């Protein structure tokens, strides 16, 4: 198998739950930690779209931000085309990564013109103004916006249009990897489909690789080649989308699918219980309090990802 574009090894990100003050530090009191990302190993191949699926608090956004280099890991490594991410390689690696955020109303500087917004990634490269203008026009056309928008400001645009601008900004420097954090969640249904189609077209045209983070399984199904479900800071299932979402093996992925209302099934069948607090995780498998197939070992040991056919599953049901 070719070297992955991005690879994480034993990646951990723990946040401090409360701010430790001077007195507490004096008494070596360890602040409780939010284990947002706990020992995650994931690889993204060049040219593919990997969907990271999960509910709020599962760690998918944190994992996305770690890979985007917006957060630094507590421990573990991230490798980009084999190169480890360190303080010295950071700047170089960042040039190949771009991000599209969820909230179209906060991801563009309200005081900047659209042209300034989309050409910001080009700032340090020494291009002249006219070259930048031309590039802005091209990239806006690529996302389906007329050149007229270059002089406008974000407040004149609708949510869907702003997201397109965010996408334009992300592709103008033709990065290798684009991380999309719930890019269509804040958009209306009709606009969502436009943006999703656009993302597929752009991937084709510019040979991009996407890490697509979403809580919407149907969207993940539509857009991705491979999918990974996360629960309480860990990846519980990962593999080709057709299998992970079509025929899920992990009980959580199954529960997730049964919870999605669809036009095919009249009723939903949600799992019982709630997502655990990331500070006080259950012992053993983190899903076991809610799992219909729970066994004795599940309460003791947390299963690791194991290969089962084409997918990786972290569940004691599969030895």
């Amino acid at each position, binding site marked *: 198998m070719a070297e992955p574009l991005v690879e994480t090894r034993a990646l951990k990100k723990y946040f401090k739950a409360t701010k430790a003050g001077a007195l507490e530090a004096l008494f070596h009191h360890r602040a409780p930690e939010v284990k947002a990302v706990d020992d995650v190993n994931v690889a993204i191949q060049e040219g593919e779209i990997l969907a990271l699926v999960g509910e*709020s608090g599962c760690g998918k956004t944190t994992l996305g931000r770690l890979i985007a280099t917006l957060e630094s890991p507590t421990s573990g490594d991230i490798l980009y085309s084999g190169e480890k991410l360190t303080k010295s390689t950071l700047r170089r690696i960042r040039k190949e990564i771009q991000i599209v955020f969820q909230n179209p109303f906060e991801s563009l500087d309200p005081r900047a013109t659209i042209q300034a917004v989309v050409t910001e990634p080009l700032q340090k490269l020494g291009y002249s103004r006219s070259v930048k203008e031309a590039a802005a026009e091209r990239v806006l056309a690529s996302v389906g916006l007329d050149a007229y928008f270059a002089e406008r400001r974000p407040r004149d645009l609708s949510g869907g249009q702003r997201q397109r601008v965010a996408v334009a900004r992300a592709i103008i420097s033709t990065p290798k990897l684009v991380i999309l954090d719930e890019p269509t969640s804040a958009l*209306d249904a009709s606009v969502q489909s436009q943006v999703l189609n656009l993302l597929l077209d752009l991937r084709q045209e510019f040979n991009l690789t996407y890490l697509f983070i979403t809580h919407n399984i149907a969207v993940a*199904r539509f857009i991705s080649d491979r999918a990974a479900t996360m629960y309480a800071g860990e990846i519980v299932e990962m593999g080709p989308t057709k299998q992970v979402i079509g025929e899920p093996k992990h009980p959580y992925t199954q529960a997730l699918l049964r*919870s999605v*209302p669809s036009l095919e099934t009249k009723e939903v069948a949600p799992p019982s219980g709630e997502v655990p607090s990331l500070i006080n995780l259950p012992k053993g498998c983190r899903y076991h309090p809610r799992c219909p197939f729970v066994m004795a070992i599940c309460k003791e040991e947390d299963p690791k990802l194991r290969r089962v056919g084409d997918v990786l599953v972290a569940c004691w049901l599969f030895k």
Partner: protein
Amino acid sequence: MTSRDDSNDIVSVENLAITYRTVYGSLQALNGVNFSVAKGESVSIVGESGCGKSTLGLATVHLLPLNARYAAGRLMLDGKDVAKMSGREILAMRGTTAFMIFQDPLNTLNPVKRIDAQMLEAIRSRARHEGTSFNEQEALKEAIDKLEDVRMPDPSTIIRRYPHQLSGGQIQRVVIAMGLLMRPKLMIADEPTSALDVTVQAQVLKLLRDLQREYNMSIIFITHDINVAYSICDRMVVMYAGEVVESGDSDKVTRNPLHPYSQALIRSVPRTTKQEGRLTAISGALPNMITPPSGCRFHPRCPYVMDVCGGASPPVFEKDGDKVRCYLYGRTAG
């Protein structure tokens, strides 16, 4: 399906038009809306932002903001005209006849009062309306019972907590429980699950469905997600740009949508099952509600647009038991 028996309706909206006064002009939020909910029926209103679905919900309980105007038509709630209700009647109506739950659970409850205090307040208020006595012990027991009804785990502990100590799903359950305490005939839910996780949403949806059957309560469920709408209701009403474009039995509307907008909406939503190719997107953008398009408001984006569509607004036609507002199904008022 023949014409409905009006006396069995808890909500009856006839030709309702509501406008908002804004700094940009008069915003036509609702235009000629006809809509009814029978007793014990669950209806969902589906549409994108700006289609007027929230306005319709708020209008039913007289909760519209100050700059709203009832421009035309009637809205009858349990036989009374909402627009003409006196202040007293409105207070009596809210909570007892109709109860509303909103999208953001954290803002619905008072953050400085415990759950038990707030639930007891609801019971006290109901006792006042009904003229019955209020006994704190009994009321507390009733509140805990209601929390069990909404499938809240460990209700006696939860009830002594403050809202910020509960999760979003738990708060929605508390709000639903409080609503049920008032024994309303109608519950209006405005995107109550949009801010919740997938599994929590499924739990709340299942709960609402079960409760609706147990209490024989009418539900108006407002949402932008057609999948959610389908899973919760018997009848579906599709709105676009302030008008009802299609309404009918939810199975019929989703399997065989008549209005081009409903068709496009259903086709543009991704599925969890395998899909080939691309999503059929709806071209264009949502219209400006200050100056909406003439005639049929969807006509600038409609793939089947005809000359007549830009003229007068199409009347409502009936086909196979569904009502649809589209010239594809007739020429003159049918």
